[in-house]
Every structure is written in structure tokens, then in C-alpha cells.
């Protein structure tokens, strides 16, 4: 029981929007599609839903070809970014819609539909709103109604396009936990789109990072966080410091940097690039080191420190206020990265190849 997407490609006019998507979603999984704006997340979701068709590739569910089926036959639940509730129907009628349009032979009776809607309203914690119209609801409440409407048809797969995109931070956090709870108690296979990595990592069983119409990495949130598979994923996940280094016998070397904390890598000798999170860099006062502190700025809990070497190398680090207490502008410091990711090659050839599937890496925890 799984959703299999293979070599999926879609172009709008001359612009390729999806370029060979490969993805397998297992029964009951909660998957996040994470990527920057324009990376093709919505397009992929719409193709899965049957609202759009690919130019090439396959899509099957449970062994049956879904590309040969209409949206209605696939029985998926789709929650639109702006909810797309029916404004002239009450919350109750919105949720009941999918049941009332069933062919007469399979349509449940009125009483049974009402009971289903009542159960959903209670389950989604909006039973007080049954007789309101969408215009009379807050954003978070509309989100719940939209989810209720999609769940009423007992979908095989639930698809959510930026479910929390239009909500404020607090409501987002609440609804996020709530959605996880809903998923855990229904077990419906769910795919949701987001460009907020915190959201993806907190909520999802597996995260799919997309960029420019290809899948950059698929994996468990921790796996992706600790071992970004491509330079894009590294940058996207906040490894914003990029340093040219040299590899020798599996160890990284760079002047003025203490790279002993980094594990050995199976990367051939030669030039490479080290990606670091500013928070993973520890500045250590050392009169002999080539770096000099040129800027110290406080962001409240953290100190943002800029260190520059004589050779023009500029590095940003973040330390807690307590740790950085003794640092002053002008001090010589050595830099000690606690963790980082190394990709072979110099600074420029990092642009990923256009052939997507070759670069695919399924990271498993």
C-alpha cells in the first residue's frame, strides 16, 4: 500500500517545473515537501491530486495507475492554501459536501451524513461553529473546516498545500501539533507542502527537499539536518558559511581552522568545500591564529561574531553571550567547527547537475 512517483516531469510552456521526480510514500506516512518558492511543490501536489497531469513519468497507488484516473476516482483529500471553502454554505454543509455528491446508490442517508459531520466537527474541535459561514471564521478555524471537508470522504491520501501558510506564528504552532495528533489517530497517508523547515522537521516522518523541480534529498528530519546531501540542502538548512578546504587522507585541512572535530570522510584528496552553521563554529582566543574579530553584535541570547583573516576570508559565527564574554574586537582567534558538511570540489563547481535521478540520495536513519 504505497504511492509511487517515478520520473515525473512537467513543463509549462518552455519552463520545466518538475524534472524527474522520484518518490515513494508508504502507507500511513506523514511526508513534508520542503523547498523554496517556485521549486514545484504545488505542481507536484496537484498532479498527485489529479488536478494537473505530467508530461512524462508515472504515478501509481497500490499498484494501480493513477494517471488513468480522474481526481474523483482517486479519492484524495486536498486542502488548498487559501482553503477554497464554499462561501455560500455553512460549515456543516461544507464538510458534508463530499458525501452529498456521491451517486445515489452509494450515498449515505441524511441522518448518517449528519452523524458523520457531527463526529468530524467534534474530532476537529469546531463543533460550536457548525452553522456559521466561512466568512464568519478565523483563519485557523477555516483551516480546520477545510481539513474536515477533505477528511469526510475518508481519503486514501491527504494532500495539504502550505496548510499553515496564512496563519500567524502562535496559531501555526498550535495547529501543527494538532495536525500531528489528527494524523496519528487517523493514520491517513499525508503529504504536506511547506517552505518552513522548522514546520517540516517537527511534523514529518520524512522530509523531501525540493529545488528547481528535482528532489535534492529524502530522509528522516535528523538525517537531513545532520547530513545534507547536496550543497543546496546545506545552504537551505542554514549551513551558510562556505569555506574552501583541502582533503588529505580523508581529513579536512585549512589554515587557521581546527578541523579535528570533524569525522573522516571518504572524499578523494584535493580541493573541497566545507559548509558550516554559524552556531557550530567556536571561536577560541589564540594569539598565533590568523583570524581577527572585526565585529561583535548581540541578538539577545546570542552574539554574532565576524572574524576575518589576512587573506580576506570572512567567517560568521554565533556563540552564546556567556561563551563570548571575553571576546573583543581586534582579538586574534582560532576557529573550531564542531560539525559541518564537506562536498568535493572548489567553491564554484557546486552547481548541481541537471540530470536529477543520479543526484538522488535516499538517506535512511
Amino acid at each position, binding site marked *: 500500500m504505497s504511492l509511487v512517483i517515478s520520473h515525473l516531469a512537467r513543463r509549462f510552456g518552455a519552463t520545466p517545473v518538475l524534472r524527474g521526480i522520484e518518490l515513494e510514500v508508504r502507507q500511513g506516512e506523514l511526508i513534508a515537501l520542503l523547498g523554496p518558492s517556485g521549486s514545484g511543490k504545488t505542481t507536484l501536489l496537484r498532479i498527485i491530486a489529479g*488536478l494537473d497531469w505530467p508530461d512524462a513519468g508515472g504515478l501509481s497507488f497500490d499498484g494501480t495507475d493513477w494517471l488513468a484516473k480522474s481526481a474523483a476516482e482517486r479519492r484524495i483529500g486536498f486542502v488548498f492554501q487559501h482553503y*477554497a471553502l464554499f462561501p*455560500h454554505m455553512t460549515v456543516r454543509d461544507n464538510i458534508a459536501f463530499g458525501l452529498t*455528491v456521491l451517486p445515489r446508490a452509494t450515498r449515505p442517508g441524511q441522518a448518517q451524513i449528519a452523524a458523520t459531520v457531527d463526529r468530524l466537527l467534534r474530532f476537529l474541535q469546531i463543533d460550536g461553529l457548525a452553522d456559521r459561514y466561512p466568512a464568519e471564521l478565523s483563519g485557523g478555524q477555516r483551516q480546520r473546516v477545510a481539513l474536515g471537508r*477533505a477528511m469526510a470522504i475518508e481519503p486514501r491520501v491527504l494532500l495539504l498545500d502550505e496548510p499553515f501558510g496564512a496563519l500567524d506564528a502562535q496559531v501555526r504552532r498550535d495547529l501543527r501539533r494538532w495536525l500531528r495528533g489528527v494524523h496519528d489517530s487517523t493514520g491517513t497517508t499525508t503529504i504536506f507542502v511547506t517552505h518552513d523547515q522548522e514546520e517540516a522537521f517537527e511534523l514529518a516522518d520524512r522530509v523531501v527537499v525540493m529545488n528547481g523541480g528535482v528532489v535534492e534529498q529524502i530522509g528522516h528530519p535528523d538525517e537531513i539536518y545532520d547530513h545534507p546531501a547536496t550543497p543546496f540542502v546545506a545552504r537551505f538548512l542554514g549551513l551558510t558559511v562556505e569555506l574552501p578546504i583541502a582533503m588529505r587522507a580523508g581529513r579536512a585541512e585549512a589554515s587557521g581552522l581546527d578541523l579535528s572535530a570533524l569525522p573522516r570522510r571518504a572524499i578523494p584528496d584535493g580541493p573541497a568545500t566545507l559548509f558550516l552553521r554559524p552556531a557550530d563554529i567556536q571561536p577560541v582566543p589564540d594569539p598565533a591564529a590568523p583570524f581577527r574579530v572585526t565585529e561583535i553584535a548581540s541578538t539577545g541570547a546570542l552574539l554574532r561574531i565576524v572574524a576575518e583573516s589576512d587573506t580576506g576570508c570572512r567567517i560568521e559565527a554565533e556563540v552564546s553571550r556567556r561563551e563570548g564574554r571575553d571576546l573583543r574586537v581586534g582579538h586574534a582567534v582560532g576557529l573550531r567547527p564542531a560539525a559541518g558538511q564537506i562536498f568535493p570540489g572548489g567553491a564554484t563547481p557546486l552547481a548541481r547537475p541537471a540530470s536529477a535521478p543520479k543526484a538522488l540520495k535516499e538517506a535512511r536513519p
Partner: protein
Amino acid sequence: MTPVTPPAALAPRQDRKAQWLLIGLAVALTLFIVVVPLLYILWRALSEGLAVFAQNILAPDTLHAIWLTSAVAIVTLPVNLCVGIAAAWLIARFTFPGRKALLTIIELPFSISPIIAGVCYLLLYGRQGLLGPALAAADIKILFALPGIVLVTLFVTGPFVAREVLPLMQAQGSEQEQAALTLGASGWQIFRRVTLPNIRWALLYGAVLATARAVGEFGAVSVVSGAIRGQTMTLPLQIELLFNDLNVVGAFAAASTLTLIALVVLVLKTLIEARTR
């Protein structure tokens, strides 16, 4: 502290004078251009008593004209609704070559004088026209009969429904319809339960405007009707005829019927506008 009198306190008095002047002008113009003529129609129609008024209205030719105009309105309305919705839907929901052209064609009747429409139909369907001989051979009578009047009225009223519905459909986008699609609704269910309720007021508004125009059209109809007394005279044509016959009370009586229809339309339009605001 003494209250400071703003120096501007003097200025507004002059402004106010200009204001009243403008308001007065607007009221006077409205009175003499719109209200007085309308009231005058009613007054003249009733000037010789209710009995004469009724007698004039019930004159066979006038009665026939009222019937003909109603028939034209009743036949054109559903056609206008269907074509208007279909066109708006096509343009709002699909991109296809010729979409812009379709939009222009739909609005064309607005920029063409109705009399030109009439003349075109004459040239097309008339005895010497392009299709004339073929129609005559098949014994189909279009000109100087109800079909011609209906066709030319359709031409003149065509744009109204699409023009009202299209902006709304474009603004709303197709997400609701797609949501209904994923929920398993059929095309007809989507139209009846999602699309139609969303456009219903714009649709009604367009229908009211189109009907008002259908009832009142003079120029185009006068060309294709042939003005056969008691047969192809619509209400506006009949009014002109009565007027030319110097039957002033008759003309005003017929005109008052048309005015009444216009007033009903106006009230409906205002109600719908208040509803959609």
C-alpha cells in the same frame, strides 16, 4: 487661553455657495432631463381619465405589441443566460488561442450602433440578401417576423450577462471548483452547487439589464421587423406608430407601460446591487 478662530472659517462660506450651486444644477438637470419627462408620460397617459387609458392599452394593436415584446424578452432571456455563462466560463477558466478575440467579439455589440446590426441582418437574410434565396426556397421566414426580431435582439443584448459574470468568475478563480472536483462532484454538480451560487447575483443583474434592453430596443428591431401593423410591431415601435398617427393619448398609454417595466427593472437592479454590495 483664548480660543483661536481658524482663519479658514471664512473660506468655507464661499465653498458652500459653490457647493449649493452645483447641487442645484444637478437637481435641476435631473428633474428636467429624467424625472419630468417620465412623470409627464404618466400624466398625459392618464389625462383623459382611467377609462380612456385602459381603452388605449387594450386596443388590439397595442395589446399585440405588448404581447410581442414580452415574447421577445421571454425567448431571449434563457438564450442570453446560457450563452453568457458559457462564454464567461470559457474565458475565465481556460486559456486557448483566440481567447482575447472571443472577449472582443462578445463586447462588439456594445460598440456597434443597433441600427447597423439591423441592416446587417437585412443584408444577410433579406430577399436579395446572401441567404435570402435559400431561406425562401426552404420556406423559412426570418425577416419581418418574430425570428428576425429575436435574432437582432439577441445581438443587441448579447454582452450583458457575460460582462457581469466574467469579472466575478475571474476574481474568484477556480479553486473552489477544483476542491469540489477532488471531493468527487460531477461537472453538473460543481456547476449547480458551487459555480452558480457564487455568480447568482451577477447573473441576475446581467439578466435584468439584458431584459430591459430587449424590451426597449428600437433601432435594430425597427429595421428587421418591417413594421407590419398588428403583426411585427413591438412596444417601442407601436409607440412611435401611435405618435405618428397623432394618437397622443394612445402613444403615452403605451409608453407608460414601457416606463412601468423600466421602473420595475430599476427597483430590481437597486435591490440586487444592495444585496451584492
